[in-house]
Structures are given as structure tokens and as C-alpha cells.
């Protein structure tokens, strides 16, 4: 069977039921494709076994890059390329360079991190999301299971587990 095509979708009304369902489904050896919720549910990433995001690391290094670029820019421009004495200060007046250095650090850190986030999550204006259930941006929590990944368990067993854990609906969903 082809992967990433046929799904069994459990619809939940409550986040606590969903959390219980995620544990129970994983406990019974079924691999979860993804969970789609209308709002962030804290702790869900741990329950799904996701590794912590490294976006903070990206933010740090982009920030560091900003600090370096800002200092190099100011020191090279005012210190070496065209030195001008302003208010009796040194050509390389480091304390006076701090505000601009700080701002560029923040700017690059924020934009770099957000850029990485958008790229890694495939968020772009022309992205066509796969919608398992249209209500997942309103008031329903969606638990999607890829049938091809769980051939050993069997579709009926998957559906039973979803129903047992409190899914109000269990649907089949196929994507071309």
C-alpha cells in the first residue's frame, strides 16, 4: 500500500480526551501520522514523541551574526573607511555603537528565526494544506493515522482504538 495517501481520522471534541487517545493509540503500537488542533495543546509534542525544536538555536546564531555584522560595519565605516571626529570621540567609539549593534542583533535574530520556521514548516502563501477535517481550525481535534504505516495492526483495530478513546467520529480520508 502506498504511504501518505490513505488515512483513518479520529475526531475528538475535547483536548483531554485527545491527550488520552494519543497515549492509548501509541500504547497499542499504532503509529500516529499527526494531530491537528485548533489551538496549541501544551505537552502534546512530548506525548507524540517529538524532539524539542531547535529554533531557539537558530535564533541565537542569527543574533550572533547580527552582532558581528553590526560591529564590523560600524567599526569599518567610521574607524577605517572614512574616519571623522564627532564630539571629540574616538573614531571607534564602542559605547556609541552599542544601540545600533543591539538593534541589528534583534532584527537578524527575529527575522532569521522566523525565516527558518516558515521554511521548516512549509508555510508560504501558495502552500495548499492537506485538510483532514475542515473543523480542525474551529472546534475539533483531529488524530490522523496513516494506514500504510500500520498494516500490521489492521484498519478495524485502529478504528476500534479510536472509538474506545472517545472519538466522536472515525472517518476514512484519502488524498490523491
Amino acid at each position, binding site marked *: 500500500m502506498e504511504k501518505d495517501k490513505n488515512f483513518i481520522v479520529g475526531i475528538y471534541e475535547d483536548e483531554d480526551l485527545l491527550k488520552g487517545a494519543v497515549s492509548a493509540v501509541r500504547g497499542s503500537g499504532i503509529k500516529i501520522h499527526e494531530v491537528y488542533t485548533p489551538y496549541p495543546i501544551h505537552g502534546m509534542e512530548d506525548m507524540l514523541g517529538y524532539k524539542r525544536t531547535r529554533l531557539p538555536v537558530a535564533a541565537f546564531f542569527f543574533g550572533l551574526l547580527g552582532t558581528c555584522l553590526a560591529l564590523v560595519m560600524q567599526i569599518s565605516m567610521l574607524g577605517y573607511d572614512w574616519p571623522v571626529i564627532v564630539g571629540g570621540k574616538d573614531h571607534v567609539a564602542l559605547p556609541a555603537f552599542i544601540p545600533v549593534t543591539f538593534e*541589528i542583533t534583534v532584527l537578524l*535574530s527575529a527575522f532569521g528565526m522566523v525565516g527558518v520556521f516558515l521554511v521548516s*514548516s512549509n508555510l508560504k502563501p501558495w502552500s495548499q494544506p492537506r485538510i483532514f477535517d475542515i473543523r480542525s481550525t474551529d472546534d475539533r481535534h483531529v488524530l490522523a493515522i496513516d494506514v500504510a504505516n500500520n498494516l500490521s495492526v489492521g484498519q478495524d483495530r485502529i478504528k476500534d482504538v479510536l472509538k474506545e478513546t472517545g472519538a466522536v467520529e472515525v472517518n476514512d480520508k484519502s488524498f490523491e
Partner: protein
Amino acid sequence: MQVTSHDQNPPVTSSVRAPLITGGKTYSDVTHDIARHVEGKPTKSWLLSFAASVALLLIGGLAMLVTLWEGIGTWGLNKTVGWAWDITNFVWWVGIGHAGTLISAVLLLFRQRWRMAINRAAEAMTIFAVLCAALFPLIHMGRPWIGLIWVFPLPNTYGSLWVNFNSPLLWDVFAISTYFSVSLVFWYLGLVPDFATIRDRATGIRRKIYGALSLGWDGAAKTWMRHESVSLILAGLATPLVLSVHTIVSFDFATSVIPGWHTTIFPPYFVAGAIFSGFAMVLTLMIITRKVFKLEDYITIGHIELMNIVIIITGSIVGIAYITELFIAWYSGVPGEQYAFLNRISGPYAWAYWIMMTCNVISPQIFWIKKIRTSVVATFVLSIVVNIGMWFERFVIIVTSLHRDYLPSSWAMFYPTIYDIGLYLFTFGLFFSLFFLFAKFFPVINMFEIKSILKSSSEKVNK
């Protein structure tokens, strides 16, 4: 929908803490209440308000045209008072912007859940206010189309002669542009999941537009995890950023040697003042918004009261700063400094000083009375009074310090021309036009954040 117990975040069941969301809402009620304003036809009251704002924009636009055509000689400036309404308006608008970042970033770091009903609109206010602010230094350069290029360190035909990184005015350029762009990104990122909600309710062209705006958001747990992480770090970056912005704005004055400006108290005093005026503007806007869009269940009296408490605190800090300034002027023993402050209190601009004192120091203290700070009408009136006061604060600092300089023969007064007034009106028109457009086409309340606290902070669990 059945609201069951919540194991991760226990419900806030304190008798002291009022529910943040009233009216026994369900998740789909939240979606419906907020998304319907985006989906429906504009109401008559919206059309009228928007038309009034655009009219103001056009009338003010005439002053803008004349200023661009003739130059800033059309303003009331003279050799002694070389800075007046332009920089007053600039500082005033930037200050107003600060509350948005404070609400969305600082209150996020402090885990204040009440921010969730107002952060979206407050951030929008930040962006529009900073836009209005940035106009003034830009126009003041006389030829903005050249000035816009000269303020950034770009290679040029003078050698290259670079910008002066020692100048607080240049720091301002970097501070304001960073602040504007980071705020815009922060705001937009919060809007993405809500755009997806609107996309999934819409059909046809609207579905296409909101689909593009939502960047293909699907609400996957992995994306939510990253989104939360990015929001938290952006909040962590925006917090020192917002403090730096008004600190740098205050450096425009504090790094000079003009009596009345040359004070080390300026950075904290300006930041407190900025939050003070910003919260007042948030209140003005939110009281109108909750009424027009019938969002009283989300922006409750409790929210208004909490914002009024912030106003008492920041207003008191501002009051202490005014008194400290006077004390230090006297205690310094420097005649120039002493005269500058004596002139503020009793000189030709004493009326402005006392308006400032009344509006900023006395009026927020009225909020100690619970009946007043929980009254919508009183809050609305006082929020406007506070912003009048804060405008006068900047006017007093700028004009009274300049108009009697070191040489009595050059002492002068500043009188605004209709172009000064027109430009100020122009920014009001711009600000409100943008805000009304935002309120119509974007969800004014953060739906997903409200949903995330619905179980723990709504009326149902709080009973």
C-alpha cells in the same frame, strides 16, 4: 460542549479572580463571534467611522502636500524653537505604540492570560502608531525621498561618507525600523492560525485570499510546537527591544546639553510614560471595539480594570519622575537648569505644564476608586485625558526647554501654523483608517489563544 477537568493547567477557581471569558462560550462560539465581523458586510457604524477617518486623512493630506511642496518653512518653527510639534507628535505616537508590545510580549513572558483578548488589537495599534510616528522625522528632513536613503548606511557618491553612528538620531532610525519590522512579524505570525480558521469557513475568492494569508496553515502539532517556541522567543526579543526604543528616543534629548533635556532620568521616565499613554490608547480603542463588535464577553470589565491598574502604576512613576526632575534641578545648583524648570512652571508655557501635571499625575490617581476603574464611561474619558496629558508632556519638554535658550535676545515663542495642525490630523486619519480596516478584515481578537484558555478561564469553570 462538555467541559471536563483539565489536568495540565488546573482551572483558575479563585473567588478573587474573575473569569476572563463570560457568557458560557463554546469553542465554535469563539470562532463565530470573532470571525463573523470579518465575514459580514460592513455595518453602518463601521462605514461612518471609516469615512470620518478617511476624511481626516484627506484634509490632513492637504497639509502634507503643502509641506512636501513648500518645505518645512510652512511650519511654525523659528531659529530658537527648531523642534516643536513634529518631534512632539513623533514621541507621542511612538510612546503609544509601546503598549502593544508590552501587552503581547511582556505579559506573555509573565504568563498573564488576560492579555489574550486584547493583544491582537494592541499590536495592530503598535504598528499603526509607529508608522504615524516615523512620518514626522521623515518629513522633517525636507526631502524625504532623499532623506530616506541618507539615514541608512548605503554606499554613496561622497566617498563613501557614512552615516554618523555616534548620533542618537541615527540610533533612532535603527531602533524604530527594527521595532516596526519585528512587531509586524510578531503580529502576523499570531494572525496566521486565525487566517486559517477564516479560510476554512470561507468560499470563493475570500477563501483564496485568506488561504494565501494563512500560508497553508494546517494546525499540525509539530507546527504548533514551533509556533509556540517562535512566539516565546519573539516575546523575549521584543521585551528588551521595546525598552530600547523609548530609551533611544529619550537619548535624542538626554545626550544633548540643553537644560531640561540633559538628564539621566530620561530613559526610564520615557519608557514609563510610553506605557502609560499606550495603555490609555488601548483602552480608548478597546472600549470602542468591544461596543461596536459586541465583544463584551471577551473584553470584560475585568480586562478594563487590569489595564487601569497598569495606568495607575505607570502614571505614578511618571508623577515621581516629574517631581524628581524638579528636585534635581534645584539640588544641582546649576542656574541654567534651575531656570529651565522655573520657566516651565511659571513661564509663558506654564499653562501647558499644568495641563500636563493635571492630566498625567492627578487624573490616573482617580482610578484608585474601584467604581471609577470599573466604569466604562469614566475609563473612556480618562483614557483620552491621559493622552492629552502625554502629548503636553512632550510639548513641554521640547518647546519650553528650547524657547528660552542661552541668549535672552534670541528668546522666542512657538505658534503652530495650520500645517502643523494639519499634519497631526493627517496622522490621526491614517491611524484610525488603518485601525478600522484592520478591525473589519482581520480577526480583532486572537481566536486560538482564547480557545486555549477557554477551559481554564471561562465563566463555566469559574462558577
